[in-house]
């Protein structure tokens, strides 16, 4: 899932200072699951912004709407009836959602209310951790199902650096050393030997480095 975090209130307020009517759009997918931009967060931010305005003696008119998925134009269409009643749109979706909305309503300023963080999994209630970088050329098959690209601070593909101690990464004892995890996993699978194979330099074209990516399924397109 894509994870995100609400932006500091001041930043959002700066965006919308000039306006008095905004449309606050949530998304019922990832950002709901990671409690950043679902119906509830929309409600909270709405109150927060209105109060911040009141405090300045201004009135902010907020329309709240949470779409099933902000990254699909069909859902974004649901905003059409409201768009003329507002001066600006604030989206609580991930970057994809924000851009879909911005694309649909060229004449309206659209602002992000959350920082899109990473593709992650929830470790427990309220804790999410990065798991994938979308490098476009998955190596998990070689690394025992643990991704060194996303989970090693130096995305080393051939083993841990000298900074690995007690299974933790040198950058921060809170962070697991991905290679410790990989090694343990390889052992439990009894395939330590595969480690001896040198993983050749990675072809980063499949990743962001190859420029914005696109998937086309002719059969569906």
């Amino acid at each position: 899932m894509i994870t995100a975090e609400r932006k500091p209130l001041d930043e959002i307020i700066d965006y919308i200072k000039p306006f008095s009517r905004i449309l606050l759009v949530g998304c019922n997918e990832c950002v709901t699951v990671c409690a950043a931009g679902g119906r509830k967060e929309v409600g909270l931010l709405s109150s927060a912004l209105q109060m911040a305005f009141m405090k300045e003696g201004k009135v902010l008119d907020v329309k709240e709407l949470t779409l099933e998925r902000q990254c699909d134009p069909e859902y974004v269409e649901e905003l059409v009836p409201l768009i003329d009643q507002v001066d600006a749109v604030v989206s609580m979706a991930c970057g994809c959602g924000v851009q879909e909305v911005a694309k649909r309503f060229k004449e309206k300023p659209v602002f992000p209310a959350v920082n899109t963080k990473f593709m992650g999994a929830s470790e427990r209630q309220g804790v999410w951790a990065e798991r994938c970088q979308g490098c476009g050329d998955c190596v998990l098959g070689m690394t025992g199902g643990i991704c060194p690209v996303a989970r090693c601070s130096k995305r080393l593909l051939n083993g841990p650096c000298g900074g690995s101690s007690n299974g933790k990464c040198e950058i921060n004892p809170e962070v697991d050393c991905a290679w410790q995890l990989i090694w343990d996993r390889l052992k439990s699978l009894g395939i330590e030997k595969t480690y001896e194979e040198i993983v050749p330099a990675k072809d980063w074209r499949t990743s962001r480095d190859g420029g914005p990516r696109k998937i086309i399924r002719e059969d569906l397109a």
Partner: protein
Amino acid sequence: MKTESVLEKVLAAGHLAVTSECGPPRGAVPEKIREKADILRGYVDAINVTDNQTAVVRMSSFAACLIIKQMGLEPILQMVTRDRNRLAMQSDIIGAYSHGINTMLCLSGDHPCFGDHPMAANVYDLDSIQFIQMVRKMRDEGKFQGGDDILNPPKMFIGAAANPFADPFELRVPRLAKKVKAGADFIQTQCVYNVEKFEKWMEGVRERGLHEKISILAGVTPMKSVGMARYMKNKVPGMDVPDELVKRISGVPKDKQAEEGIKICVETIEHLREVDGVRGFHIMAIEWEQKVPEIVERAGLYPRPKI
């Protein structure tokens, strides 16, 4: 001989090699390099020049190496994959080689979060092993990593680092094997304080006969004080400083602690030279270069062989 590297020659001749390092200054002050290098003149076979060590910006390793080379000394060009992608690295390598720099150490490098630019993007286009592979390919096949031919390929004597003390320990020998496989010629290890653990590692190395495929220079660093000892123990990732060592230094009065540090360093060398597979020493006297000659002498590694 694969290269013109003095280090390669010293090792080939069966001597215990001695290298040391100096960190380039944080500014355009070539004198600093000269001062440091001069201290080492005659006491070491080659001088490592660090590359933005601990992710702090310094004069480029390449430029500093050049100065040392001009002094008639033997620099070892350190290069990390943190700051450069494969294009930048290869161009620097041929650049350095064009100036007669023929020995290098291939590292991944400390993470930027330790340095003065934590906000910097970290590149890590390659990891150290892929890096070694690339340099070896440039030398032996005369090809860039991308595949094109190189005019007058750089003949680099390829060094790599090994940290016998980092976790997972059991992975440390296989990892060395990988570096050997990738084409490394010599190894400079993390400073050795926990001799026992180091020997254990060497056992593993010998078991796989790696010590015959690659020259291992044990790293040593004299401690200036108990404070430094503690810092090394607790703050430096992958550093293994046994408690009894810290005790030993704290056991002597402040003004004697530096001396005690040197003593330990010398003892360590004397001990390790007996370990089968140890082909030399890499003395990292961090900002304490003036002590290197003393250590070399007291450890009986002086004079250096004339090659």
